[in-house]
């Protein structure tokens, strides 16, 4: 097997507040291979976006990537790379597509200028070349009459159009990896379908790897080949997309799938995961999901579960891996037993 393109090893990103330390990302390891789409799924506060920002070293104080974390990319450790080296990586080898296209674009420059700027910063060719390349990229992303559109300002474009501009910017330097942080969350469903189709099509043509960060299991199912499920700053399950949807192992993944309203089912009531995600300043001891878990037992409180191997390429951070018989006896989750509130 060839070297993975990106290898994140024991990434820990903590935010040092005055009163407490928020362990937003707490020991995350994964790889992204060349040409692959990896999905990271989880709810607000699970650490998925902080993971993405850490890879690009966009964490601002009081946030800090803790020592011992390694992010290996094209033979370099991004954690210890100097600023000049990092500038060469950002937007050039790794680029990012943000959720909210309006706030990611500068309102006082034309979109063509902003796309062309990527090429100028990374020092290839003249101003004119950069502009021509920008128009070419806008064409590639399916913007109608790209020559005209390039001269317009962000407010003159629709949301879907702006997201196409961001994609053009991200792909300008033909990066090896694109991190897409909820790229379609702010868009309407018919526009979302257009943008996802576009991303996958461009990936096929350009051979870029994509790290797709989303809360939507539907988006993951349609785009990713491998999925990481995050909860409480950790990866709790990793599997191929097929395996995850066929045979989810971790109770959180299972709960997430059952809680999701699906257009193709007609259940009267949705299954719920009681309670809410705990704050990153106070993860529960042992298993971080145990309060909300219908299977948890004393071991879960005592012992922080490692990532157990379930099958080839499938891991799960749950003691059920070694005591599978416990799955037969679900109980009410702790938060319901103690009368605490949903």
């Amino acid at each position, binding site marked *: 097997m060839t070297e993975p393109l990106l290898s994140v090893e024991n990434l820990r990103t903590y935010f040092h507040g005055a009163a407490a330390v928020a362990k937003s990302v707490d020991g995350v390891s994964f790889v992204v291979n060349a040409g692959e789409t990896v999905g990271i799924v989880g709810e607000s506060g699970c650490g998925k976006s902080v993971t993405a920002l850490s890879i690009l070293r966009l964490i601002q104080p009081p946030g800090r990537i803790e020592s011992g974390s390694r992010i290996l990319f094209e033979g370099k450790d991004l954690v210890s790379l100097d600023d000049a080296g990092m500038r060469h990586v950002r937007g050039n080898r790794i680029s990012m597509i943000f959720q909210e296209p309006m706030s990611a674009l500068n309102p006082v420059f034309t979109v063509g200028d902003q796309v062309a700027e990527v090429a100028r910063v990374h020092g290839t060719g003249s101003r004119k070349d950069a502009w021509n390349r920008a128009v070419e990229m806008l064409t590639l992303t399916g913007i109608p009459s790209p020559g005209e559109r390039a001269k317009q300002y962000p407010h003159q474009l629709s949301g879907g159009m702006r997201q196409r501009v961001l994609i053009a910017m991200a792909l300008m330097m033909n990066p090896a990896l694109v991190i897409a942080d909820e790229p379609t969350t702010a868009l309407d469903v018919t526009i979302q379908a257009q943008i996802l189709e576009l991303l996958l099509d461009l990936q096929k043509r350009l051979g870029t790897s994509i790290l797709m960060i989303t809360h939507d299991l539907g988006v993951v199912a349609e785009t990713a080949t491998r999925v990481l499920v995050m909860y409480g700053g950790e990866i709790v399950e990793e599997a191929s997309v097929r395996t995850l949807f066929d045979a989810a192992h971790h109770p959180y993944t299972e709960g997430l799938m059952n809680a999701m309203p699906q257009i193709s089912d007609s259940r009267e009531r949705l299954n719920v995961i009681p309670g809410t995600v705990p704050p990153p300043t106070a993860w529960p001891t042992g298993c971080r999901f145990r309060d909300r878990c219908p299977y948890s037992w004393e071991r879960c409180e005592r012992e922080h579960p490692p990532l157990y191997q379930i099958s080839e390429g499938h891991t799960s951070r749950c003691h059920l891996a070694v005591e599978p018989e416990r799955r037969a006896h679900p109980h009410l989750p702790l938060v319901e037993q103690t009368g605490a*509130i949903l």
Partner: protein
Amino acid sequence: MTEPLLQVRNLRKVFPITKGVFARKVGEVRAVHDVSFDIMPGETLSLVGESGCGKTTTGRAILRLIEPTSGEVKFAGRDVLSMNASELRALRREMQIIFQDPVSSLNPRMTVGTAIREGITIHKLAEGAEADRRVGRLLDEVGLRKEYANKYPHEFSGGQRQRIGIARALAVEPKFIVCDEPVSALDVSVQAQVINLLRDLQKERGLTYLFIAHDLSVVKHMSDRVAVMYLGKIVELARGEDLYREPTMPYTQALLSAVPVADPTLEKQRILLEGDVPSPADPPSGCVFHPRCHHPAKDAACSKIDPPLEEKAPAHLAACIKQPPTVITWQEQQQAGGVNPPVKYFPVVEQLTRQSTETPQGAI
């Protein structure tokens, strides 16, 4: 047959576009255009559509939080649009709204208890200890602890705040609630809790909902009937199961097929719409959807004739002159430049493929 609780007829809302210091009117936005529907007591009608389709404006115009331009709204037989301020205040006891964003809809300086009590006091439903008891009961009913009455909104998570919003709406014991995207801002696991809560409350209290949402899968779980809006108009209205099984208006078909499905084994046959929703300040002539339509019989007549919302199957209304049956005769269509006679068009969207493989009909 029982009377509908709410009757809406030809509701319109036009927002003027103004320019300059004298606010000279230079154009107008047709936010809601001739919207009509009924809601029966105890029923949930959902309004779905994408941003800017007029679904929220419709919800607010019914409550007169926005004054409609014209049309008729009758609530339990009373004409809402002709009411004066005091009549309207009395009516608000019966009609309430739950907003999308639970953060901005709660006053940060008011304790949760005070916020919930406000309605009870205004409508003189109870006072003193009795009012406190009611607040406690309401909190209990929406799954929060009674002690939370003394806390402030910022102390709660998004899901809990939405529960507070629901308790506040319920405080005046309304019959009818407009739920304006009540779960869009919530995470999946919390969203399911709130959806279940809304359904339970409906059963216990016999509530009637107008449920406004853009998420078609959430809508499917909530509604008895669904109305699809596009550019200010209702383009399809049917019982939920019928609409999801046999979407008739080409826009509904595209909308349903665009929903990402959490099943990687499914082969998708997606209808991809071209371009964006046109501006409601300058809506297309004829059928508002015609520039993006994928119906094989689409022709010049679609850009001339405004399609009526008509019955295509029992209790299944859709606005499309190319989906038979239609009251717009073939002669009329030809006069308007039509070259393709109407023909039934039901593209196989992915949800349908799956359902048909699971329940084979007429198996030999």
